[in-house]
């Protein structure tokens, strides 16, 4: 009964979506307020129906209703409740349902909070949003129905993939989707602007909070996924340049560019057409990411060709929305009015620089991700493009970007003085040089490049602080005045500084991994191994029983300078339901550095293979992303975004009759 209810609710959402996709658009065309307002109510109702559908599926998982095919495939009655819930989106069908849930959530939020939007823009945005939704409702209902029943209900499910039985699955995919799918709003706004043929600074102010919210979620979502891979996969890496990871990185790069170009548009009414294009591209890359992950094309180009139903469907959605969006752009964008002028050296110029490097870096990731697929499809030649490729292409593009970062916020709008800014950054330069020197002294010549990476990170951090010091007049003016000026600073200024500081923190953490140490040894009980000043003694093996697995753990006592500081228990878990084992690494956090232990095979002579890492400053990689998100949050809470944008100064001649 419950699965049918969920299925039916989804069909109803589709029916409403079809109304939603057409009626407000017609209303905007004929300036019929009633028709336009219909969009707001259907948007909220649709969200309710999709939510009902999602809850119904969750109920099936929680009650372990194995008559539902996807529950049977991905759940087990003995799993802890949290994993029963998370396995809803731990598979293809359920994750697509989560996708549309978030899509309709954003639509409903626009309907609820978009009261200050011009009526026609709001109607068009909601209509476009539900073109996308309808495409994906069809995709789910026709090719990936999560409510499909089995003729005979099995007694037990096949269990969730043990690697996914982790708290990471509860956090990472929903956040990632909030980011990914959140860019659909920017896309809808861009298409709506093209349909109306009018775009102005106010448009950028309406789009920015949505993009910012999506970007924040995506930033933390990617970081969370990276941390999850780090501790779950057992080989200590935090980023593998895997196509699945690149699929989320590309929208992030384009979205970051969009955030910055929208600032230019809002403040200076320039870069309008470029901002529109970026809004279309950011969501297009999200769609491409969905295609890469969901179509099976990564597993095998040939499997994709031989089982084309899902893949071709997503490919069709891709072509329809990306192709349609870009065609509309090519047709309508030249009709939009030109924006303001600015000198190459100016805040605008710096933001253009940012956009140029971000989009180019995005392009290299795109090439590195899709080239192997294209090559294989065309020539049958199989290659792998991994970290070496991206280190040679992505990194050189990110270095100038990071270096320019402190300059941007200090440059004046319209026409800037780069020498003056360089003077004000003297303290930051000095900090960076000092950091480079200190790093060389402390680490010796172990790496020639890494100290410069540390210097760059310090430069960006100090640059972000310089910006705040300059604006508040700290050290120049009396403290009380500075404090008053700090309180008076727009939150978005704080947001910029904090977010820039955050990316530098991440960079710092990444560069520090140059000095990570690793040892792989075979140990017998009571033997001790030394790593980075820590002594680890292997005490012996212990057995645990989990709710649906058995665990064989190796107990290690960790000593620093002879003093015991803790116990680490890396383990292997074996899951009877799938006959598989997973390796659970043990982590010990010391400040922001970590000791990392993971187990290998047991040898015939009773020794056990152990992989030990010392990862200096490793937590900064992910903490930096959290700082970036906080920066985004500060910016989002800025007064001018909170109270909404004023109506454009020049009203168009054709206003809907009230």
């Amino acid at each position, binding site marked *: 009964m419950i699965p049918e209810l969920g299925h039916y609710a989804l069909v109803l959402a589709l029916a409403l979506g079809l109304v939603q996709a057409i009626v407000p658009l017609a209303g905007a065309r004929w300036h019929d307020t009633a028709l336009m307002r219909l969009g707001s109510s259907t948007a909220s109702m649709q969200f309710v129906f999709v939510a009902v559908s999602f809850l119904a599926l969750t109920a099936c998982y929680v009650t372990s209703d194995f008559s539902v095919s996807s529950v049977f495939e991905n759940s087990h009655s003995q799993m802890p409740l949290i994993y029963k819930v998370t396995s809803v989106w731990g598979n293809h069908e359920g994750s697509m349902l989560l996708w549309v849930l978030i899509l309709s959530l954003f639509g409903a939020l626009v309907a609820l909070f978009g009261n200050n939007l011009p009526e026609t823009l709001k109607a068009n945005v909601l209509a476009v949003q539900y073109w996308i939704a309808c495409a994906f409702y069809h995709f789910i209902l026709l090719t990936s129905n999560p409510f499909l029943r089995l003729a005979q209900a099995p007694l037990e499910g096949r269990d969730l993939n043990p690697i996914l039985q982790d708290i990471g699955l509860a956090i990472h995919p929903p956040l990632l989707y909030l980011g990914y799918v959140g860019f659909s709003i920017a896309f809808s706004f861009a298409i709506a602007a093209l349909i109306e043929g009018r775009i102005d600074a106010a448009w950028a102010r309406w789009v920015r909070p949505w993009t910012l919210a999506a970007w924040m979620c995506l930033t933390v979502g990617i970081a969370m996924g990276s941390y999850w891979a780090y501790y779950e996969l057992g080989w200590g890496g935090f980023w593998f340049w895997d196509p699945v990871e690149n699929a989320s990185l590309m929208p992030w790069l384009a979205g970051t560019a969009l955030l910055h170009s929208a600032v230019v548009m809002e403040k200076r009414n320039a870069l309008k057409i470029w901002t529109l294009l970026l809004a279309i591209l950011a969501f297009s890359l999200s769609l491409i990411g969905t295609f890469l992950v969901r179509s099976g094309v990564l*597993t095998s180009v040939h499997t994709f060709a031989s089982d084309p139903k899902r893949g071709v469907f997503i490919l069709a959605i891709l072509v329809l929305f990306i192709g349609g969006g870009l065609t509309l752009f090519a047709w309508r964008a030249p009709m939009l009015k030109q924006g303001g002028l600015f000198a*190459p050296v100016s805040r605008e110029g710096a933001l253009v620089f940012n956009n140029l490097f971000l989009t180019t870096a995005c392009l290299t990731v795109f090439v590195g991700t899709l080239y192997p697929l294209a090559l294989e499809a065309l020539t049958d030649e*199989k290659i792998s*493009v991994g970290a070496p490729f991206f280190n040679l292409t992505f990194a050189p*593009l990110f270095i100038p970007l990071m270096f320019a970062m402190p300059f941007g916020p200090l440059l004046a709008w319209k026409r800037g003085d780069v020498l003056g800014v360089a003077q004000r950054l003297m303290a930051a330069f000095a900090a960076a040089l000092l950091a480079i020197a200190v790093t060389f002294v402390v680490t010796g010549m172990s790496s020639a490049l890494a100290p410069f990476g540390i210097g760059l990170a310090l430069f960006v951090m100090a640059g972000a602080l310089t910006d705040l010091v300059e604006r508040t007049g700290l050290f120049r003016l009396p403290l009380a005045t500075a404090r008053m000026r700090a309180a008076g600073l727009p939150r978005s200024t704080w947001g910029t500084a904090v977010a820039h500081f955050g990316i530098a923190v991440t960079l710092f953490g990444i560069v520090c991994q140059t000095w990570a140490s690793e040892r792989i040894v*075979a140990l017998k009980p009571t033997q001790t191994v030394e790593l980075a000043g820590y002594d680890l003694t292997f005490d012996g093996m212990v057995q645990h029983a989990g709710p649906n697995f058995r665990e064989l753990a190796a107990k290690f006592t960790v000593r620093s300078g002879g003093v015991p500081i803790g116990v680490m228990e890396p383990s292997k878990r074996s899951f009877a339901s799938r006959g*598989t084992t997973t390796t659970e690494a043990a982590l010990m956090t010391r400040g922001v550095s970590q000791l990392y232990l993971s187990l290998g095979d047991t*040898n015939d002579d009773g020794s056990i*293979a152990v992989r030990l890492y010392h990862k200096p400053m490793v937590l900064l990689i992910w903490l930096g992303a959290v700082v970036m998100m906080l920066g985004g949050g500060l910016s989002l809470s800025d007064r001018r975004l909170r109270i909404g944008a004023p109506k454009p100064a020049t009203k168009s001649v054709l206003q809907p009759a009230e």
Partner: protein
Amino acid sequence: MNRKQRRLILIGSSLGVLAIAAALVLSALRDSIVFFNSPTDIAEKHPGPGTRMRVGGLVKPGSLQRGDNLQIRFDVTDGKSEVPVRYQGIVPDLFREGQGVVAEGKLEPSGIFVADTVLAKHDERYMPREVVDALKKTGRWQEGETQGSMPAGDKPK
């Protein structure tokens, strides 16, 4: 500067950055990509020793030997040809005789493939696609075995 000049500067610098990026991508594609070979490819093409490559197939049952210091040796087979592989370190959880494997490293003049990486995948039901294709070529893979399931040992769908 008028609008036209400014636009020229903008377009010029964009093209400059793009050209640099293109040069980086092309040089990286020449030097840092790794080709995949099946054991049969190696037997037929005789790639020069010292070239970095990946080799993939099944771990031949009965061929796995463990030595001191976490040394292991095994043969990778695609049903037609075999390549002996040497590796030192910890192999992933899913590394077993009869299962698919992808190793990355270099071929020695003696014909032994010295791997520095033995690949683990996120998902244990995930057969490395290179291995699937290599097995298909030698007819050891049936189309009925859909993506996501192992050729042996997994429950039937």
